[in-house]
């Protein structure tokens, strides 16, 4: 998938949080064959270089996030600090509206996206499945938009297929990634079947009982869905269409 001027062979982006150890995180990176990892910035703690060094071992591109930012100002400051550390213009933009649902702020996200684009960032905004929200971000110049399937960490999957489908059909030139809500491999398949370019997930892998196994299954699921979509699946029909001919049934006069 295309992330601004970057072409990724793999269409799975994974988060780096909530793993029980760096070792398991690194194994999951390998299992998903991901090329891009999301990270955050927080107040400096003990051994601030150790996580950075773990990230370097992955050889993946870093996608810093503005997770937890509640204002445009906080998000922009975090983006500037991230660029300073990671030397990347990429930023996963999150401006949160509600602490409980972790729903993004439409107004705050659009304003921050506009400013960050002007500052030379390649902005990947996290949105809901609201059409107007996505549309405005495309209008201000975002080449990638990441609607949620459902709220972060819920694992509820793609709650509103019709809305997500309309977004996909309306913005064929925009790279669209389902971010948040993925909990099962079937959700990843649905995203690809809807024509989304990729998925971004963290909790589904990191919080599963066997993260490596789940990571592996996600890669297989996405691959299966991609192959399947290339095969030209049958269109949905409102009426039943018999697969077996009704002609020549025994004792029937036809």
């Amino acid at each position, binding site marked *: 998938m295309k992330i601004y001027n970057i072409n990724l062979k793999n269409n799975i982006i994974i988060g780096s949080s909530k793993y029980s150890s760096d070792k398991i995180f690194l194994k999951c990176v390998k299992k998903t064959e991901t090329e891009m990892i*999301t990270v955050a910035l927080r107040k*400096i703690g003990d051994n*601030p*270089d150790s996580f950075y060094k773990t990230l370097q071992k992955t050889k993946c591109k870093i996608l810093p996030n503005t997770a937890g930012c509640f204002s445009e100002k906080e998000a922009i400051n975090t983006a500037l*600090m991230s660029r300073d550390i990671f030397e990347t213009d990429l930023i996963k933009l999150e401006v949160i509206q509600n602490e409980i649902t972790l729903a993004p702020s439409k107004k705050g996200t659009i304003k921050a996206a506009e400013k960050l684009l002007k500052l030379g960032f390649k902005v990947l905004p996290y949105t809901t499945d609201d059409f107007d929200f996505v549309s405005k971000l495309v209008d201000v110049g975002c080449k990638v938009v990441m609607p949620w399937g459902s709220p972060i960490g819920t694992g509820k999957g793609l709650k509103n297929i019709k809305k997500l489908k309309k977004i996909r059909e309306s913005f064929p030139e925009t790279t669209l990634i389902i971010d948040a809500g993925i909990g099962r491999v079937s959700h990843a398949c649905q995203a690809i079947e809807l024509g989304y370019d990729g998925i971004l997930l963290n909790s589904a892998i990191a919080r599963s009982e066997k993260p490596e196994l789940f990571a592996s299954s996600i890669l297989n699921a996405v691959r299966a869905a991609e192959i399947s979509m290339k095969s030209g699946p049958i269109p949905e029909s409102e009426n039943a269409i018999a697969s077996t001919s009704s002609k020549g049934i025994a004792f029937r006069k036809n």
Partner: protein
Amino acid sequence: MMVLVNGKKRVIDSNFGIIDIVKSFKVEKKYLAVGLNGEFVPKQLYSEIKLKEGDEIEVVSPHPGG
């Protein structure tokens, strides 16, 4: 004089600058980023900016995130 570093009070010499705060973390500066009174401070300015009483310095580093 007193400044706040990541929300905690710290007494420093009056001639201290951002660079001195950064050095106190004993880690290469590529692993961290700095903000001063709500504004981002690029690395190339660490040596130029002197601190004053009550300044609020934020020092951040990479952290796992989704």
